[in-house]
């Protein structure tokens, strides 16, 4: 057998899922089991001591879940991945593994509302300091760095403002200060952007969205490059002998697999937010069609964005793929195959028009999710970003008349028909 680099589409179908050695099953078997019989007492001890790769209990590992994890890690070019019950669970665990009280995090202000809340309140309860910055301003990132800063965090494509992050510059800044950069790549997926290739260290996903692609299953995943030097003296929580694992020094002992091993063997074990094998099966199956779906998602998104951009009843369309987007140049660099399929536009009539528009649609589903094969719509100011005050809303690029779309894989003409009906309904009443 000679060395061969398989292409992305081949890996979406095959990575992590080899024929089942026990049965020959070609589809990924769903190992619906809580626990695993040990070969003997020696094996059992070796598994718990992390001396041998073995299954002990499905809160910590499961073969179906592992196939999904390996698939995502492979597509992103990471050392490995750990899956969780949801995107926010994955993010909590990724943060919890590397932070301790007194640390400081710098995050983009243009993030999913649930993430802003998580960073502000969850990290606050753990006595972790936090600064939100304008993600487009590298000097803003730089000026917030202090001696306690342990992490920089942003989204590839901001939710819902459509900011495209200059990943390479922010990664360079992070590394100059011995910090890792964590990127939420949910909107881009590894098909459109692979942040590790631009210098990011850790990538998190809500797999619930485009990875799964069908709106059936919650799940999240953390991918680690394995390249960050946790033994640089600033991360004793990762590098020092762990009292929670009989004195094991995860980074020294497991090297590039150190952070991932700690994330699984300690954080997943202790937080307990394990994904179900059935969800991992569905999400893994979703990934098999990721390239096909994403091509249709971004083509439809571009068509719909252009339609709205031309429409006299629409104020502003924040799709990075549009030529007049302030993020067009960054999108060309980081998202050459398309700028995702979630974006916002503003209705000049404010909140009332936003709500009336949504009520007039019949093909777009009004719900709080994105990244479904079906097209979705929501009014962020009254739903997903409801916990944010006016300043935070503005910093996230949201006005009272902002409507967020998640463009599906239907026929673009039908989506435009539905949006036209909604816009016409506003004209009739104003």
């Amino acid at each position: 057998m000679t060395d061969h680099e398989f292409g992305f589409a081949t890996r979406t179908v095959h990575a992590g899922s080899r024929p089942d050695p026990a049965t020959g099953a070609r589809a990924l078997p769903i190992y619906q089991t809580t626990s695993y019989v040990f070969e003997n007492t020696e094996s059992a001890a070796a598994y718990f001591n992390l001396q041998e790769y073995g299954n002990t209990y499905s809160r910590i590992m499961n073969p179906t879940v592992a196939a999904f994890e390996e698939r995502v890690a492979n597509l992103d070019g990471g050392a490995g991945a750990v899956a969780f019950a949801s995107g926010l669970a994955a993010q909590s665990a990724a943060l919890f593994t590397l932070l301790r009280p007194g640390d400081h995090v710098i995050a983009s202000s243009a993030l999913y509302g649930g993430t802003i809340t998580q960073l502000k309140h969850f990290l606050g309860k753990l006595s972790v300091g936090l600064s939100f910055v304008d993600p487009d301003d590298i000097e803003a990132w730089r000026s917030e760095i202090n001696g306690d800063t342990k992490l920089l965090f942003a989204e590839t494509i901001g939710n819902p403002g459509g900011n495209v992050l200059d990943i390479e510059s922010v990664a360079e800044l992070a590394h100059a200060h011995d910090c890792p950069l964590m990127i939420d790549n949910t909107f881009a997926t590894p098909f459109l952007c692979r942040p590790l290739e631009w210098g990011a260290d850790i990538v998190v996903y809500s797999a619930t969205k485009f990875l799964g692609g069908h709106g059936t299953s919650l799940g999240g995943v953390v991918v680690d490059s394995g390249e960050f030097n946790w033994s640089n003296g600033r991360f004793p929580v990762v590098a020092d002998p762990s009292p929670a694992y009989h004195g094991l020094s995860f980074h020294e002992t497991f090297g590039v697999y150190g952070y991932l091993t700690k994330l699984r063997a300690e954080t997943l074990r202790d937080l307990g937010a394990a994904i179900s094998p059935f969800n991992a099966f569905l999400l893994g199956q979703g990934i098999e069609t990721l390239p096909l779906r994403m091509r249709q998602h971004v083509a439809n998104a571009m068509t719909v964005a252009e339609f709205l951009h031309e429409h006299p009843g629409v104020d502003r369309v924040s799709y990075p793929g549009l030529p007049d987007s302030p993020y067009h140049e960054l999108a060309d660099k980081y998202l050459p195959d398309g700028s995702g399929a979630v974006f916002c536009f503003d209705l000049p009539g404010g909140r009332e028009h936003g709500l009336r528009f949504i009520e007039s649609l019949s093909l777009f589903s009004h719900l709080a999710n994105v990244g479904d094969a079906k097209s979705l719509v929501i009014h962020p100011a009254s739903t997903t970003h409801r916990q944010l005050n006016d300043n935070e809303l503005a910093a996230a690029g949201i006005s009272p008349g902002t409507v967020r779309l998640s463009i599906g894989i239907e026929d673009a003409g039908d989506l435009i028909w539905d949006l036209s009906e909604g816009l016409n309904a506003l004209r009739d009443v104003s």
Partner: protein
Amino acid sequence: MIDNPYQNQDVIRNALNAKRIALVGLSANELRASSFVGRYLLFHGYDVVPVNPNEESILGRKSYPSLSDIPEKVDIVDVFRHPSAVPAIAEEAKAVGANCLWLQFGVISEEGAELASKGGLDVVMDRCLKVEHARYLGRMHWLGFNTGRITARRA
């Protein structure tokens, strides 16, 4: 990975057929990486021979002061020492007729690798023997690690 002449997939897979592996610099401290590797290799049936002049025995196996003190033929010389120690170990590995010089993660010595390679040994550098076994023959995929393995053939 493919560009590094000392990380060739065929060489790595072939090395895994070894029977006897000398672990040069194996620590008696069970929390050190070398101990994890040694224990793993024992678990998978390899004849593990510790080489550490400071210990009588490690992992229940007799420890030898040097490679040339080992009475049996060694297939792989697996090195956990500082890179500066590698050229001398490479010479010794040649002298005892080993088939492969394996340098663990971070044990990077172009000089040592070249010495061994010119002496007819297979050389693997900056790779972990445990990880490569787990990747191709073991169960690394059970814990969500990226093995890079794509195949439709039944194991």
